[in-house]
């Protein structure tokens, strides 16, 4: 088994499985976010549940581990890949042979990580450790997460900047996922000429869902509500 972890394919399997895990997480996160469209009570209840449910708390630490493993292995693999290509071509034409996103996974990933970092500071950190106003929904006191979100996405230039960053980041995530989805299945061996087409389509739809789903939020608050 030790050979497995040090081998190129083993590392890629770990990267893929952690990626697939994060892919599932994104769906959960998106579901929670969409409660925003249902108004403050709905969202606050959902947030409260995520905040207090003991199972979710355990999963949360696994999630953190998932992120760490995914990022760590992506970097290890990338450094090896750079080492394997010591000299670059003067002219390289790849437009027809591979997609832009597949060639730029690491940069998309780094960009997304940058966003993740600010995102954690803006939301997760504040909700866990920061000062937050409370609200009472159906007789139960809980954090007013809705207010926190609305605060970031509305009012003034800063909201536009933040929304812009948010939207660009999710476009980047969409591109990342567009390649990642099928690629993860391919790496764990679940693909052939038929499934590759299917998985590619599902992957693209999924990537679109995530991108659109998340970008709907700032747009909703900025322009609709």
């Amino acid at each position, binding site marked *: 088994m030790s050979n497995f972890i040090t081998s190129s*394919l083993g590392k890629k399997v770990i990267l893929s499985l952690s990626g697939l895990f994060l892919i599932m997480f994104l769906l959960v996160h998106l579901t929670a976010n969409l409660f925003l469209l249902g108004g403050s009570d709905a969202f606050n209840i959902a947030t409260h549940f995520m905040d207090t449910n003991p199972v979710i708390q355990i999963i949360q630490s696994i999630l953190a581990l998932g992120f760490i493993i995914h990022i760590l292995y992506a970097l290890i693999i990338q450094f090896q890949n750079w080492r*394997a*290509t010591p000299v670059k071509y003067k002219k*390289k034409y790849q437009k027809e042979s591979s997609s832009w996103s597949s060639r730029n996974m690491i940069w998309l990933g780094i960009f997304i990580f940058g966003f993740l970092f600010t995102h954690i500071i803006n939301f997760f950190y504040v909700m866990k450790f920061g000062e937050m106003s409370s609200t009472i929904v159906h007789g139960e006191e809980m954090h007013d997460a809705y207010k926190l979100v609305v605060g970031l996405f509305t009012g003034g230039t800063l909201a536009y900047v933040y929304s812009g960053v948010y939207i660009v980041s999710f476009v980047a995530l969409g591109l990342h996922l567009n390649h990642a989805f099928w690629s993860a299945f391919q790496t764990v*061996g679940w*693909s*052939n000429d038929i499934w590759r087409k299917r998985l590619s389509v599902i992957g693209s739809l999924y990537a679109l869902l995530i991108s659109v789903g998340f970008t709907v939020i700032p747009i909703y608050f900025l322009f609709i509500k």
Partner: protein
Amino acid sequence: MKVKLKIWRQANAKAKGQFKNYELDDIQDEMSFLEMLDALNSKLIKEGENPVAFENDCREGICGTCGLFINGRPHGPGEQIATCQLHMRLFKDGETIVIEPWRAGGFPIIKDLVTDRNAYDKIMQAGGFVSVNIGGTPDSNAVLISKEHADEAMDAASCIGCGACAAICKNSSAMLFIAAKVSQLALLPQGKVEASKRAKRMVAVMDELGFGNCSNTGACEAECPKGISLAHIARLNREFLKANIKS
């Protein structure tokens, strides 16, 4: 037609290389790319210059010896051909053609456009065979093989070992090359017996030899002169996982 050539020149493995420019005036459409280089070389020899070293042999796209990176693509423009099958009619009059050697950690340069692809042989040595002795084999029809499997194995087996896959790969990964062999033999009952072990051993050697990790961009498949499918890489991945789960 006229062509301007920008060719990588490097005296030997250790020397520092550089691009040199050449011009040829009387190139005909129906010449093959390598014949154009032949013409350049005879001109250079007559002018007292060293000819450009490039490798080729069968000149019909099957031996896998030739391999030039032409205008940013392995084997140049044209679909599913080796360099020797490329013809000048695919270039425009007056076009500048950039010619480089394979550039991959696993393929060090020997001279000019000639690279050392011995690494592919070493990978084959690690397990690209069926461990069967010569002599005393059963009748060929004693083991039946479905046409589908035989055909798919043949698709994989058509690899010519030219190195274009690793050459175009942004990670210099040799996965398509290995996958072609692992997949071919895993599809056939004769090779199935040691399929997982084979995958494990070949991947281990690939890692040692300085090739990168596959990130499934698909460039290898698109540029492979034999159009070998990424599905074979998926099969390699399966065999590799199986091998590790078993042990």
